[in-house]
């Protein structure tokens, strides 16, 4: 019987079995950032421990960086203290650090792939739940807590239980104007925000075969929104082409050897899965959320749910709670909902292809009066290429603020925050209560092009109509 990629990578990285029954798993690549690592270094010092494999950890700064003015010291002294701490830790423990002055800084999940640090057949951990993004390359990548960041720093291993694997096939064809983000939101809506607990998601089928690496990253990124700690796509020619000539990719003769090895990690044709889900791509429409959990989504043509039509008491209560917070009328069309802010960016949709795709349609259009529109590239390198291609100008001419790289309004740890109960059309990944920085702020998740459509119309709109996508 064949093995799937998860099992192959798991077995190759197993150090042993701990006394409580968990596996001691070797972490090939460790990524750190300023929010979840300082305490881990503190614990290391308290225990008088060193970093075991400093070359296997890479640091960057993303969550707290301002995107309007990155001159140090930052206006927020707490943010400035965090970045100072990260630099100190990186220097003291000899860790590669892509800082603001490096030209390579950015959201950790954009930087890893961009540098070629993210590679197939590896285990990747980071104190950040969106680490599953790196699974797009056929890696087993997952978020960990700070105490586990300590464990990785000190031993390059963690204690972990093996997950089950659910294969999710999406086959057929996506209609024009339907993007990887819609696929992610559709899967989460279908399987629920907790449907993936205990599972790694293996994404496949003709849609994933045809996806670019950036599209694969968008879907893998949101695995955790469906409860799956890790999600991946089997490595193929698309993967290898993306990695060719990246700074940390294997070079020369090592390249061919690496590609051969990477190919061997792909799930075997007769691999077994604990569960299989089949989705017809033709059923996926541009999808937007209406509630306070990423699984509360509808197609743009659908209406906001009515609690009166809930299947049971639990569902009724959860719809009511969401609609009360979102201040949305039950049963009404989601299309036409007034929008105050539009945000394009984040580790889900802040990559070069996202800005290129939106720019194609944004030329000559104007953001509606009263809408604050932000475009935030996911990394400094993304920003440079966007500038070179003149994309920044297209966004600025349309009325977007073009910002510098960072997580920005995805989680609003920097000054980019909603005010009061503003409603934000957002290309990010979470619509939790208060997620975008205001305790009463409202988030509607959607694809970057849908965000652009909402920015132009001043209300939630069907990008296919606004931009005549066909």
């Amino acid at each position, binding site marked *: 019987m064949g093995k799937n990629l998860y099992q192959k990578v798991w077995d190759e*990285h197993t*150090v042993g079995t701990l*006394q*409580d*029954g*968990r596996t*001691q798993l070797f972490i*090939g690549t460790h990524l750190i950032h300023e*929010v*979840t690592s*300082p*305490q881990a270094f*503190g614990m290391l010092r308290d*225990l008088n*421990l060193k970093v*075991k*494999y400093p070359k*296997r950890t890479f640091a960057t700064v993303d*969550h*707290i960086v301002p995107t309007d003015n990155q001159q140090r010291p930052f206006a*927020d002294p707490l943010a400035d*203290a965090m970045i100072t*701490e990260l630099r100190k830790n990186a220097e003291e423990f000899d860790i590669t650090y892509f800082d603001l002055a490096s030209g390579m800084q950015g959201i950790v999940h954009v930087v890893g792939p961009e540098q070629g640090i993210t590679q197939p057949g*590896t285990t990747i951990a980071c*104190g*950040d*739940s969106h*680490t599953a993004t790196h699974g797009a390359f056929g890696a087993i990548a*997952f*978020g*960990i*807590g*700070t*105490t*586990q960041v300590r464990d990785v720093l*000190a*031993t390059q*291993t*963690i204690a972990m239980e093996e997950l089950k694997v659910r294969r999710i096939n999406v086959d057929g064809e996506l209609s024009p104007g339907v993007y990887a983000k819609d696929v992610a939101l559709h899967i989460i809506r279908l399987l629920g*925000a*907790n449907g993936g*607990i205990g599972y790694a998601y293996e994404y496949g089928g003709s849609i994933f075969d045809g996806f670019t690496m950036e599209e694969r990253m968008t879907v893998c990124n949101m695995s*955790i*929104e469906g*409860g799956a*700690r890790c999600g991946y796509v089997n490595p193929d020619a698309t993967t290898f082409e993306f990695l060719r000539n990246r700074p940390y990719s294997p070079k020369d003769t090592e390249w061919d050897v690496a590609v051969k*090895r990477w190919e061997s990690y792909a799930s075997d044709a007769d691999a077994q899965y604990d569960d299989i889900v089949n989705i017809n791509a033709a059923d996926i429409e541009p999808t937007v959320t209406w509630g*306070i959990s990423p699984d509360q989504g509808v197609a743009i043509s659908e209406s906001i749910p009515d609690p009166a039509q809930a299947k049971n008491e*639990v569902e009724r209560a*959860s719809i009511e*709670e969401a609609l009360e917070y979102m201040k949305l009328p039950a049963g009404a069309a989601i299309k036409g909902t007034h929008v105050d802010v539009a945000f394009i960016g984040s580790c889900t949709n802040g990559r070069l292809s996202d800005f290129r795709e939106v720019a194609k349609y944004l030329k000559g259009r104007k953001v509606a009066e009263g809408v604050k529109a932000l475009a935030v590239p996911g990394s400094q390198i993304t920003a440079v290429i966007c500038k070179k291609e003149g994309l920044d100008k297209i966004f600025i001419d349309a009325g977007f603020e073009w910002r510098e790289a960072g997580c920005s309004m995805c*989680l*609003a*740890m920097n000054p980019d925050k909603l005010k009061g109960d503003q409603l934000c059309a957002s290309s990010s990944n*979470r619509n*939790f*209560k208060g*997620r975008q*920085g205001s305790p*009463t702020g409202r988030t509607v998740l959607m694809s970057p092009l849908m965000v652009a459509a909402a920015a132009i119309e001043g209300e939630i709109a069907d990008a296919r109509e606004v931009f005549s996508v066909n």
Partner: protein
Amino acid sequence: MSIPSITQVSGTAVYIPGADIDTDRIIPARYLRCVTFDDLAEGLFRDVRTDPDGKPLNHPLDDPQFQGANIMLSGPNFGCGSSREHAPQAIRRAGFDAVIAESFAEIFFGNSTGLGMPCVCASAEEIKALGAAVQANPKLEVSIDLDAMTASYGDTIIKVTMPDSAREALMSARWDPIQELLDNIDSIETRAEALPYV
């Protein structure tokens, strides 16, 4: 380095109902602007406890009857979303020793176990009944027994569940795995040498 084994947690409970209570709600992101975990208790559920003007929202955590509670009760998928360990750290630092919920998000569960804070699951009906009992009598003694895998209050005993490995780790004082991980340093090095990319 010695840590205590954890087999029983007893005390009083507070019920925070709701599905999919995410870690942003447990500790809003602005409280993450810190380099230690020391002052996190203040941020616990902050934005559902007070409105932006500081007006109390009558959250169970602020109900005088439930002051001193050390067991938290909640609904399904508790702790979903962000991996921030700040969430269980805030719960712990606010005086809680255990959480009983319908289910837990995985990263939150692992982080909590690593802090020696057991998270056990019970059915929706049982949590609702326990919540009602606690509401009726806030001083009700609630006890979680990891050996028997039960939670008891008054004359009622309910079954709770938890993955075997976490249960074993808590009961055998290995919930902080660092020492055992370090002890295996030779195997770690062997594994590293065998990995072609390391």
